[in-house]
């Protein structure tokens, strides 16, 4: 397969080019992990300082909507992993279809998240949006601030991912991305999508499952 990969300057062979691409993407994802790492540090410090109030605030979140959304994201990652496998095997139509399916599941996630936000707005729990807000105390207010910052930052990343996968699928379907010649594009977009999934894998227990 390696001789069918498009080779670019300054790389001498396909394996070297592939490793450099993966390394660059992982370094970028490292900066993203540091961004979310700060948010997680604040979440865990808040829990350590106010354990009882933190758990009480966490219990007001919609735990089953969160679980459903976790399942939706894990399934979308599965679709992307399959898309990369088929892209490597030059099955372009199948790969494009799976990328569209993954982006569609991403939209389901965002829709459920928006539905959850509207429930919280009516419950008086969402900072900035609930009028009047109805927090039981300052720690619950702080917890919901953290919840809004963390989940909206994640939702922004999801939105970028949906646009990325949809655009990629469109280009593959129109023949603009020859496969497996430019499979690195599918691999690296996939890495981004999986990473955003991993962030949610940690956000869900940290916010929804504190007991």
């Amino acid at each position, binding site marked *: 397969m390696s001789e069918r990969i498009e080779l670019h300057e300054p790389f001498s062979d396909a394996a070297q080019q592939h490793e450099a691409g993966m390394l660059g993407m992982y370094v970028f994802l490292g900066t993203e992990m540091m961004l979310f790492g700060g948010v997680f540090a604040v979440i865990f410090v808040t829990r350590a300082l106010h354990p009882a109030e933190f758990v009480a605030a966490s219990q007001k979140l919609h735990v089953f909507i969160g679980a459903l959304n976790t399942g939706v994201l894990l399934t979308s990652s599965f679709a992307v992993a399959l898309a990369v496998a088929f892209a490597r095997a030059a099955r372009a139509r199948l790969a494009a279809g799976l990328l569209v399916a993954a982006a569609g599941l991403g939209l389901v996630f965002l829709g459920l998240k928006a539905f959850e936000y509207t429930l919280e707005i009516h419950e008086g729990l969402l900072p900035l949006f609930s009028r009047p807000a109805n927090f039981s105390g300052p720690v619950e207010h702080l917890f919901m601030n953290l919840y809004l910052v963390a989940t909206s930052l994640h939702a922004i990343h999801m939105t970028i991912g949906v646009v990325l996968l949809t655009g990629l699928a469109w280009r593959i379907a129109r023949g603009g991305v020859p496969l497996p010649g430019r499979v690195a594009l599918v691999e690296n977009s996939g890495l981004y999508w999986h990473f955003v999934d991993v962030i949610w894998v940690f956000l869900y227990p940290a916010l929804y499952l504190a*007991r």
Partner: protein
Amino acid sequence: MSLVRTLSLVWAALLGLLLLTLGASFALTGPASLAASLAIAVAKAALIYWFFMHLREEGGLVRLAALGVAAWLVIFTLLTSADYAMRP
């Protein structure tokens, strides 16, 4: 294609771990609950990194770049925890 079978099994395992963490949140409280939910999240992330994000096919350099970030995050978290744990 045996790769499809492997990826399907990983997906099933991920959904199983999701049910496990949900169940654990009803059974456990306090530090035990936090430890269980974090351990399950790490297991899910490991499956995603190893199979979906290709670490099992990559060489040492890419693995180091991927896991080095996690190591740094652990160091930062430990130092932050030490600060809060030692405050009078």
